[in-house]
């Protein structure tokens, strides 16, 4: 029982770490590249405009998809490692 609890706590910690990193990327592409850091990226041209505009209308959405699939793949692996899957 104690082992189970420790195992569950370690699994949760690994999960929270993965979530934190995923959220860092999530915030960086949307609030960062697309909004606040756009003036810094203004020098990088993309099809008649700049990289910040591309991230705001295309890049952030593509990154969000990658984040979710990466998270699902990593966590489903963690489920097996910690033996907590259904």
């Amino acid at each position, binding site marked *: 029982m104690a082992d189970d*609890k420790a195992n*569950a706590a370690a*699994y*949760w910690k690994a*999960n*929270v770490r993965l*979530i934190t990193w*995923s*959220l860092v990327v*999530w915030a960086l592409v*949307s*609030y960062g590249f*697309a*909004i*606040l850091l*756009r*003036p810094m990226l203004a020098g990088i041209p*993309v*099809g*008649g*405009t*700049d990289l*910040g*505009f*591309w991230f*705001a*209308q*295309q890049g*952030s*959405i*593509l990154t*969000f*998809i990658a*984040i*979710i*699939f990466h*998270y*699902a793949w990593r*966590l*489903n692996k963690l*489920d097996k490692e910690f033996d*907590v*899957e*259904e």
Partner: protein
Amino acid sequence: MSQFAINLIFVGASFALYIGIAIWARAGSTKEFYVAGGGVNPITNGMATAADWMSAASFISMAGLIAAGGYANSTFLMGWTGGYVLLAMLLAPYLRKFGKFTVPDFIGDRFYSRGARLTAVICLIVMSVTYVIGQMTGAGVAFSRFLEVSSSAGIWIAAAIVFLYAVFGGMKGITYTQVAQYVVLIIAYTIPAVFISLQLTGNPIPMFGMFGTHIDSGQPLLVTLNEVVRDLGFRDYTADVDNKLNMVLFTLSLMIGTAGLPHVIIRFFTVPKVADARWSAGWTLVFIALLYLTAPAVASMARLNLITTVFPEGTSAPALAYEDRPEWVKTWEQTGLLRWEDKNGDGRIQMYNDANAAFAPTAEARGWAGNELTVNNDILVLANPEIANLPGWVIGLIAAGGIAAALSTAAGLLLAISSAISHDLIKSIINPNISEKGEMLAARISMAGAILLATYLGLNPPGFAAQVVALAFGIAAASLFPALMMGIFSKRVNSKGAIAGMLVGLISTLLYIFTYLGWFFIGGTNMLPNTPDNWLFGISPLSFGAVGAMLNFAVAYAVSLSTEEPPQEIQDLVESVRTPKGAGAALDH
């Protein structure tokens, strides 16, 4: 064949398909009614969730808003997709593990209190009803245009069809119908976009065409667009915004709000396993992205096409004579959503930014006496194929698509409202001994009440469809999302903290919105004019949800820390939802 007949055939055929599916898959038990029996494949669920989620606001209004606002309105694109990242990692898998039927079920059990459950029910109803208004407005526009009736009659027709349709199937019927609706709406959205992208840039993929070269001018499409809007006194399409705080908060409100929408969350109760809930969120976003990556291309190309229509010889030559206006302008004039007023009496259609003081001398020199063409943003996507002279069947298709988007979301919302009333209010609080038949009857009656209220408000809407929906997001962000997240990620937050947090989040957001938009959206009752000068720290009422969410988190923690810890069995419950082991199907209880 007339365009009206083509529209009727496309819309009629799509309705026949949906009703056929709804009859085939109608719900026989409460479990089928609420969670489709809990056995939906994650990809199928992703597609249904995408249709459920992509409403009239996404299909009809969003590209129009981006066309009008350019870069500044990228907030809708990021906000309405980024929420799925939060949903996939912070809520969906754990709520699936918890395994009940509704969102208030979780809040009521986790915070071990009827008060918490009741607060969640109230939040859910307030925001779902607000959201349905946006659908009714959007469906009203689509019906009025394609069935050639007034906008009010369009809303009544939409109400009648949504009602028939949602009462039929419950979640099971709705799920499979939504899959069909997704297919209809994505085809309807992308086909005109592909044609237009080919016409303007030669590239069949709109998301690449948008950043490609404009054939007529030989330079990048966005550069040409910036030039022509500048010539008419508008801001550059790709111009940066000054108020970044508001842009960040608005995007954040939409993201948190998306993750907190009960009608989206309950869709993840329908998949067989916890791991499926994670994959399903990813698939949902893939299906949504097909439309969302196309929308900005539609927006920029439609804006360019509209200007080229009004100024066929270029923006420095005289504008189009009203006599020569194309057929689509005439048909949209009948709906009242597009208006022309000959202010300078020259019989031509001048369209420019008359609010720009710096541009006034140029306008005067050209003999213009004010902007003469008023185009409602909401018509842009629907009129897009006509503006680009596409064949009649494409126009019929877009009619069917716009209506599919509005109906699928309205059905999902009505299900969330009716399950909150019949399951959380009647079965759990008022009369626990109600029979299964009685519960389903109550669910159907509450759907009827919700749709009547939404129709009334849809006839007197507080703004464009997408903006009305944005209000619902503020409420979801400020009330439900923080409570759900804290319920999973903190063992310390207790019932008093959660209730106080939800109430503070909800009330502060509503007060802020009503201050600027009028009490209960009734025109003329607002206490301050809704202009940026009057906003607190430049935060628009639409962006306040993120602030409300922060207040909710802060109050919930402060109150919880100064009161007792939650009981042991609740802390055990939190531990159990954190691991997928032993989930099983959604519980029948």
